[in-house]
């Protein structure tokens, strides 16, 4: 049966599309942006999260790990994660999480059928209608699991639920295209205009993304989709005047109208630790409100329509 890997289904979301929404977080992303606020979304298999605040030091996980990766040092539990990737791929993955009663170690990510996702998202169907909300596929990168995403979107449309997607746009055009008939709103990231810079901070070049934007610009009229481009404003990385100007010029050339400048925020920081990743942007502070307003001004200059979902 068709299954997708997700790392969360979150109800009562109000920042991603209109009204009160449910977010379906896909796991797995072709990019690895340094500012990513969902680092646990990047890897496409269930992985182990460690939440030391919940740990009651029963030490059951120590013998449970087949790699002997967990040990105690000066009264603190240390996990050497060098074998965890291998463990994720193995048949007996994540043994440490199965013995942990306190959810201090838990598997992040699980496989769902379309029906299982629908069961969750239908729980709030009434409030979608009351508030003009719906369901947003987020991630991670939904187009990485295009078949599953398409099946889910089709089912949502069958239930008269408004749909939205958040995408980084890094995928084969066909994988994006197949979703378009089932979408009401689309949030499409454009982070850095310079391809080398893009590769430096996200791990991949951006030609494919820009190409998809161009095609989307041409084909948008065939669909009934509200398209919003999104640029995360990351101080010192994406916030050069050049980058903003180039993005706006490019979009306006493609006949695209709406853009939202998103302020960098620090809320994802803690998550890096829980999955044993390193966060590189510790010194960065969120941009000033005035700067976001400036970006909006630039967008307007190019005939774009800057928007802000609260």
């Amino acid at each position, binding site marked *: 049966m068709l299954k997708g890997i997700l790392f969360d289904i979150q*109800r009562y979301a109000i920042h991603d599309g209109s009204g009160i929404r449910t977010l379906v977080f896909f796991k797995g992303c072709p990019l690895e942006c340094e500012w990513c606020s969902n680092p646990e979304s990047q890897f496409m298999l269930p992985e182990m999260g460690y939440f030391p605040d919940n740990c009651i030091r029963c030490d059951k996980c120590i013998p449970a790990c087949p790699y002997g990766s967990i040990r105690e040092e000066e009264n603190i539990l240390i996990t050497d994660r060098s074998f965890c990737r291998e463990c994720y791929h193995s048949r007996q993955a994540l043994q440490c999480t199965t013995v942990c009663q306190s*959810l201090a170690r838990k598997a992040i990510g699980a496989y769902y059928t379309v029906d299982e996702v629908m069961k969750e998202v239908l729980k*709030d169907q*009434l*409030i979608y209608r*009351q508030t003009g909300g719906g369901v947003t596929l987020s991630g991670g990168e939904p187009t990485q699991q295009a078949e599953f995403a398409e099946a889910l979107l089709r089912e949502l449309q069958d239930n008269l639920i408004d749909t939205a997607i958040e995408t980084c746009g890094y995928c084969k055009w066909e994988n994006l295209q197949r979703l378009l008939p089932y979408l009401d709103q689309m949030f499409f990231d454009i982070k850095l205009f310079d391809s080398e810079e893009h590769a430096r901070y996200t791990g991949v070049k951006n030609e494919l993304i820009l190409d998809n934007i161009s095609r989307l610009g041409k084909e948008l009229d065939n669909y009934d989709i509200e398209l919003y481009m999104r640029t995360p404003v990351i101080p010192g990385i994406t916030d050069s005047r050049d980058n903003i100007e180039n993005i706006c010029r490019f979009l306006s050339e493609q006949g695209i109208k709406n853009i939202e400048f998103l302020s960098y925020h620090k809320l994802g920081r803690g998550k890096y630790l829980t999955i044993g990743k390193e966060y590189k942007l510790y010194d960065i502070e969120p941009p000033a409100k005035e700067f976001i307003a400036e970006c909006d001004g630039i967008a307007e200059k190019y005939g774009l329509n800057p928007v802000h979902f609260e």
Partner: protein
Amino acid sequence: MSNNTESIGSFQYATERSWTERIENLINYIHGIEPGICIERGRFVIEAYKENEAEPTMIKRARALEKILENMTIYILPGSLLVGNQASRPRWAPLFPEFAVSWLEEEIFEKNPYYPADRPADPFIIPEPEKTLPEFKEIFDWWRGKTHMDRVYSHLPEEVITAQDKFGAINEYNYIQGGDGHFSPDHGYLIRTGLRKIIDDCKERLANLDKTAPEYHQKREFYQSLIISCEAVIKYAHRYADLALEVAKRTEDPVRRQELEKIAEICRNVPEYPARSFYEAIQFVTFTQIVLQIEDNGQGISVGRFDQFLYDFYKADIESGELTYDKAVELTENFYAMLYTVNRIKSWSDTDFFRGSPMFQNLTVGGIDPVTGQDATNDLTYIALQATADTRLTQPSLTARMHKNAPEKYKKRVAEVIRLGTGYPAVFNDDAYIAALINRGYSVEDASDYCVIGCAEAGPAGLLGGRTGGAWLNMTKILELTLNNGYDPRTGASLHPNKSNKTLAEFSSYEELEEEYYRQLRYYISLEMIMENTIDLLYEKHMEEPLAAALGCPRTTIPRGLPMKKGGAKYDFTGQQTIGTANIANSLYAIKKLVFEDKKLTGEQLLHALHTNFEDNTTNPTGEEIRQMCLNVEKYGNDIDEVDTLAREALQAVCEEQVKYFNTRKGRGPIGCHLHTSTTTVSSNTPFGRFCGATPDGRKAGMPVADGQSPMRGTDVNGPTAALKSVSKLRQVLLSCGSLYNLKFSPNDLAGKNGLKRFISLIDYYFSMGGMQMQFNVVSKETLLEAQKKPEQHKSLLVRVAGYSAYFVTLEKTVQEDIIERTEEALA
């Protein structure tokens, strides 16, 4: 969950109030007075009882009221446009020694557990103790052994006393130590009728009584006592007229002098005769509210549908130019200040259940018109909301009725006032409440005219007799007793063994456990019934309330010649409050999963862990590991059908069992006369928690249980829509006595137009799924923590406790902690 980590902090203070200088000064004046105990009433009751030994109780009680109203200290508050006082100073509590003295005697003379002025919360000073203490002693000596409480204890079977005092499985101290209250006077009828007409009516009926009839004496006493009481109230009003003129003479300010003369003129007219203006009507209502709370110390004397029964007066005066909108706001705020002066002292042990000295004088606005079924909001609706926003007092409690076609403007105003953080108004769903009342036998029209009485209990003013509040049922304790075969590990006492004679260690299936639990539940409900009958019997025999009969339900008590406690009301029910739905659902589900389905634990292991408060490290798994297993089983409040179903069944079982029992008014006139259920908690979840050992939901021994029908705090982790949905799955329509769901929001979650809109959407969402009632704590956690540290700077910080609001800094530490912990349902 909140993306907005910045707190707005002391949100309440930042917003502007639009009150007049008069109201500001008046309220500051009242706030400046420390609550105390006023001995006067205690003194006069004894005198009256001594002078009327030979009289029947009805007359004796009427004479006592007469004596008090004639002799008590009266005052006019500086600048106040309204008069009436319950005790010699604002916020002082009169003595009601006829109900109980032993606890007060112990508190005053043994300092057990605290001297009233030294209580950790809700303290009361005793003025001039050298002078008053001997008199207190005299009063206690006179009453010792013959109070209502003494009688209740001499009547109660041992098992009921054990269930209450030892187990805390049921509790009715409130009505053992005090009067009933809990009705909404027939204000609308009274202000259009006047007491003179009621007196004349009683006189006529008295004259026409058949003296040979067996019930002659009972009827005679009834009418005579009503006449005495109403005359006493009229005289009491005249005392204010005299006082106002006297003060006027000494007043230099010509404007104030005129105001006082006006007060005198009004007090000569109301409550004796019908009110001639909005101003007079409000003064009438003030008198009615206050004198009822001098006759008896029952709480919950509720104002009723303020915007409905006063609207004609308002409209006429606006049209004639006698009144302006702003003047009506000022009078309403003045009225709130008057209600706020009323107070009651409860024993320290009962104070635990009712933190923040709530009087539950509930005032209802909005809702549908009982005849047309259409929206009935009007100017006064908005004026009452404005008055709450301006005065931010703990009394009156404000209720906003909502319905499918409620105007958006009204919803917005309600949301804005809630956002101020005073905990008021609570919102009530007409569609659900009306259906619930009709299901209990109310006519469509009467059900549609409901107001909220006390905490969250609904009924039509003037038509519903008292007893909307009764015994509490501590379901968590009953489950604990079931798991232990009727034995209470805390006290070592045993009452009612399981039918199978098994404990959790021996149950062979989940179904067996469930069956035993429901059997125990039925047993404890039967004890509640014994308690109710005992209290009712003693109220009716010894604690008659002639004034309540005249002002409460005059349209039925007078034709029937019966006080409410003998069947004088049109409708009569006895409400039962049920606590801890969430703990039952979560505990049963944890046992079901861990012991019987996943078999991670044996019943014996779990029971041992409960007995050792999850602290035994020598077992495998250890106590703490077992607790983690328990905590991490799915919980009620997250929209998970499997556990929500258990919550529904647990509450439904209580509703269906209680409704089988009849109260003492059955067959004596009123419609209904059975028990019914509410989930109002007030602050009882904290003391009830102290009676309960560790529970299978992972709760440790002694910790508070869940309030009302809310999810256990901290366990609803899927956001507000999931929590609302879980709660809405309970068959709330069965909660005809009232439903209580507490939600906490940070003010920053409600900021801006979108915040308000979302907030309203959530209310609409809950109500469209059959939810009945919601109330809100809107303060940031930071504010509360800050207030704990610097109480002196946060004296006016109001929080919703449950069913009412209280000043946070006056609450005891554990209740404060409980409020802080309650899940912050982030709206952003």
